[in-house]
């Protein structure tokens, strides 16, 4: 029974990791910007959801909408006022990385100053587990997380493969000139990538506020797992990022079946190292040099 419990817990956590990793992967895949501040979008969305729903007692749909708006605005702000000026002048990868990292720390401190540095969470019956079989506890939020992750991924896949803007987003990193030929503006397409990628982080942020709870440093941890999931899945592959997130969530929980709990997070990085050594292109990424 413990094994089944760990699998269910792993799927729930994996769904949250997948949602965050897919947003990061979408932005990186389309723009080649290493958006480390994606974790800051997660923090902003999660705290705004908590503040509007648990403190101001707004209805959840309104709170979720505010969180989406804030995450999208943050993504657009980063693209327009941080990454674009850097890329206009020199565009060095390291400069972009440091700028994003700096923003992540600023956001962490701003959130701590505004909302407090302690632990907060959204209390809801959805996170309360019920015993569905002897020894097996499942919370409604587990099923909701998995279903939402599937819906988001399906809609995103449809958007990227069946719409002009979606296809342009996929083409952006490979050949921006081709996008111009089709009458689209590469800068505008990059903004779409940031807006959508940042919006996708919101469901995971909301589920985390309800289950694990929040502190201002929550985004850094989420970002670390998202990066690992993106590498495991194959950089630039959305399907890979989703599978990578799911795999890491499962690995983190299943580790407890045979190992002591302090190994659970280490297992995540063992999986990452195994991929880096034996399958550096990840699940679905293209090997280096492939055209």
């Amino acid at each position, binding site marked *: 029974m413990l094994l089944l419990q760990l699998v269910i817990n792993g799927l729930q956590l994996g769904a949250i990791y997948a949602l965050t990793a897919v947003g990061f992967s979408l932005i990186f895949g389309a723009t080649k910007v290493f958006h480390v501040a994606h974790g800051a979008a997660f923090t902003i969305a999660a705290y705004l959801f908590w503040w509007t729903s648990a403190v101001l007692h707004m209805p959840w749909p309104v709170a979720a909408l505010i969180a989406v708006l804030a995450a999208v605005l943050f993504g657009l702000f980063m693209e327009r006022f941080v990454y674009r000026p850097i890329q206009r002048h020199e565009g060095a990868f390291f400069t972009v990385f440091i700028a994003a990292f700096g923003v992540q720390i600023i956001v962490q401190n701003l959130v*701590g100053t505004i909302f407090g*540095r*302690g*632990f907060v969470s959204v209390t809801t019956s959805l996170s309360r587990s019920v015993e569905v079989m002897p020894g097996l506890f499942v*919370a409604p939020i587990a099923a909701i997380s998995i279903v939402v992750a599937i819906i988001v991924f399906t809609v995103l896949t449809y958007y990227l493969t069946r719409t002009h803007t979606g296809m342009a987003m996929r083409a952006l990193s490979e050949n921006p000139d081709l996008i111009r030929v089709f009458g689209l503006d590469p800068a505008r397409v990059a903004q779409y990538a940031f807006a959508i990628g940042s919006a996708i982080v919101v469901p995971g942020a909301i589920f985390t506020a309800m289950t694990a709870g929040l502190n201002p440093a929550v985004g850094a941890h989420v970002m670390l797992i998202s990066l690992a999931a993106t590498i495991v899945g194959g950089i630039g592959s959305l399907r890979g990022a989703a599978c990578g997130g799911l795999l890491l969530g499962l690995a*983190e929980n299943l580790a407890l079946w045979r190992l002591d*709990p302090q190994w659970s997070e280490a297992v995540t990085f063992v999986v990452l190292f195994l991929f880096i050594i034996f399958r550096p292109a990840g699940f679905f990424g293209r090997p280096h040099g492939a055209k």
Partner: protein
Amino acid sequence: MHITRLLAVLAAVCLGAAGAAAQDTIKIGADLPMSGPNAEYGELFGAAANLAAEHANADKMLSKKLVIQFEDSQATPQQGVVAMNKLVNVEKVPYVLSAFTGVSKAIAPVGDKAKVVSVNGGGIGPDLAELGDYFWNVIPLVNLEIRVMAPYLVQERGFKKIALVYVDDPAGEAIQKELKENVPKAGGQMVAELQVPRNAQQFTSIAAKVRESSPDLVFIASFGAQQAQIVKQLRDNGVPQQLASYSAFASPTVTQLPEAKGALFPSQSVDWKAAGMSERVAKDWKAKTNKEPNAYVANYYNAVMVFVKLAQALEKSGQPITGENLLKQRRANGTFDLVGGKMEFLPNGSVSMPIQINEIDGAGGGKLIKAGTMAK
């Protein structure tokens, strides 16, 4: 040329003003977490220390204004040492407030080498009593807390089977060691000991392991946001058993958490209604924060007041305020009248105090359920 001269004059004036300001103050340091997941503690400890400095300055206890220079330890040993080096070598302070077992152990050799006193009011690892002459504690260490808590839980409350969830950190390991020794001694049994990484945030599967061990009580030995996360996730994932912890549960993050209602934790006995210093601190703390003070407020207030009383004695006898002289004066003073009553340092620089047991009342605080007793 004129501009260069003007700038030089301005710089000289500014430097002179800064130097004069430095000479008009007595500075001590505080190596506390101001950012990261444990920043809440730094905020609480710092506010209590500032209140003590405010009182000392208002009462003109020292010849100059007392100021506290805060540096961010982030509650990590590495950052704590960086901050300590700055306080000792750049700010040249004779006295530093410290917190967290790991940080305190890391900074102690720096203070010892420079003959700068470090005073801990938040870390609880028993080995903090053995860090040398220049490391003092104004908080009873966890071995004393557990020696009161274990017999209470097992013998008085009948929680025979205890599961422990503890953080992979010197504080967590110290608590595990003490429980392993004291729970069987009291007639109980440790049915699970689950160590979790310091930065772990997901405990749904830990809850499954706890359920599997069928305990009467779950003892949580963590701190900061993580201890609240453990409480919430245990309650959300089918663990209805009694919860207990050490003095870290006095943190507002836990006492205000609905899921933590009914949890038991020890703390040093402080009668906030006692006339004099305790009453004044309680009144001013409530006026400033709109909250009741807790044991941490007493500890960091006391840590600053210990310095003030020692420095006062040194000034009276015309001796400079250095770490070495503070140590000599502490040994000469013996006892101190502080928040919570008389405090006496043991020869190893730690203190022994009565420990009381509290229950989280669900209204944002802890209510006393067993009056203070001395650890055996």
